[in-house]
């Protein structure tokens, strides 16, 4: 948010970041995803435990476990995250008596 720089370099509008390219990339990515699942129709997978032979097992398992990990990390973040200077504190010790008690 705070990174809005004044100067706009000439390559800010690189072809790779144009919305049109990104849309195309999503379609290509989707097609490849579909291909990897459809490919399993033609390639017999030798599973170890049965369930891993199902068509698209790895796709669903990979997707769901990743969602689970991200959500878990997000929830854990509420407990574990601290400001970046959290550890940059000196221990607050009592004042040195030789400096503090010169009123006697």
């Amino acid at each position, binding site marked *: 948010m705070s990174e809005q720089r004044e100067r706009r370099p000439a390559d*800010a509008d690189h072809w790779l970041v144009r919305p049109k390219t990104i849309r195309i990339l999503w379609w290509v990515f989707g097609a490849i995803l579909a291909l990897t699942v459809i490919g399993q129709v033609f390639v017999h997978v030798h599973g170890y*435990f049965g369930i891993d032979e199902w068509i698209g097992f790895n*796709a669903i398992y990979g997707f769901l476990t990743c969602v689970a990990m*991200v*959500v878990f990390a997000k929830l854990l973040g509420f407990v574990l*995250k601290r400001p970046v200077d959290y550890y940059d504190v000196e221990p607050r010790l*009592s004042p040195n008596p030789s400096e503090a008690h010169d009123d006697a």
Partner: protein
Amino acid sequence: MLEFVLPPAFLMMFGAVLLALSRPALRPLIALATPLVTLYFIWQVGDGVQQTVTFLGYEVQLVEGSNLRRLFATVFALMAFGGALFAFRQSKWWELSAALLYAAGAIGVSFAGDLIVMFLFWELMALFSTVVVWCGGTERARAAGIRYAIIHLLGGLILKIGIEGLMIQTGSIEIRALTLDDFNTWMIFIGVLINAAAPPVSAWLADAYPESSPMGGVFLSAFTTKTAVLSLILLFPGQPLLIWIGLYMVFYGIIYALLENDMRRILSYSIVNQVGFMVVGVGIGTELALNGAAAHAFTHIIYKALLFMSAGAVLYRTGESKCSNLGGLFRTMPLTATCGIIGALAISSFPFTSGFISKSMISSSAAGEQLALVWFLLVAASAGVFLHAGIKFPWFVFFQKDSGLRPKEAPWNMRLAMILFAVACIGLGVFPNLLYGLLPYPVDYVPYTADHVITQLQLLLFAGLAFFVLLPLMKRTDTVSLDVDWLWRRGLPWVMERSDRAITGLRNLTTGLAGTVGRLLYDLMREKPYRYFSSRSPMGQTAIWMAVLLAVVVLLAMT
């Protein structure tokens, strides 16, 4: 056995000292040549015990060779070369020298025939890796280096207790497979695991490594944890407890890397994650699993160094390592970005990269032993690796948003080192037999089958889909994540503050009390002095006693 063998570790140490003493113009040459000459001597080490020396009255085995030991020493030497190439124009000479001594420690452990030699080189590594952390040069690096040193010296102490106990009780310090059946072996086990960044002290790694210099991180990523993996393979193969420790490390690395903002800290967490895979392999303990652990250590060192080089180049050029301040760097650092992506694909075990041929051996061995739960967790973790390192690192550093940063491409020596390691990542992935021929046991594992490739692609690409679908949940926050190191970074100071306050309170109470009582006595004395002193003991009495005393002294002196 009588022919003279030069211990490769000594050669590396000699090079490091020479580098420190020589003229500045010669230093780059020495930094680059030392690892290569060492590599040659590593390959001259035959099988079995090659050299024994007498140390403190013990006959210790300085050099013992085997396939496994040569494999680790080889990758350590290659790593030292790649790191030196990456660093020699930018690092100060003391950083290069310390890094070579650190590598020498790792090579020394690789060839250590017994526990005494292993321990000595183990401490050499602890010492000079601390120096490499300190070469970060900042106040944070200084503090992190001290914490790092304390953990490793404590780990070394625990290891030493175990070694001494074993020596006294069994009389043998031979490096051999041990069973966890008494105090001594437990101590050795814990000592080694501390260096592997195992729980509960995994935090030391992500605490210290990211504080090093852009070049130092490359060296740090390689040696300490992987020598610990080698030691586990040699000392505790097939110890089932390691499976669960390894699985914890795998998921710890993923979750903490997902929470992290600093790019080199993300990579550090992913070291713990990758070492976790190796530790699981050692725990399974079959020939395939141990081969897998060794192979994965080899490929991991190369691609993790490549990732640290890529991140180091970005840090060197921008001075920035927070994902929230980076982004869009692919425009002006295309080669660094490409090499970073290759490293990221390799760590994710994409087909035709080095990670694919090594990590799959470990998960296959879990399936082969019918460890269903372990297998399913490892597969989920493989998807998670793509999530936290494979996409997250390149995405947030090189793409994401346009940060407005337009740094120059990395210097030529950094580029060369990155290209070299990127080629190695792909080369090992395309020609797996290059690596399989070096493994400790004969390999009949075939990584490239149609079904293996297609299931792996499915897994990884759908993990990628999950990343982009959940991108809003992954918005970077400028935070640190609490870990066990809270205990000594905040907990210990808290105890210190509290006990200081308690002691101060007690002191004030005592001085207050003493003051009151003292003042009371003093007042009494001052106001009525005659009642306490001279009134009861007249002056003359003292004079007489003094005279008697003097007489006695005179008499004694005369006789």
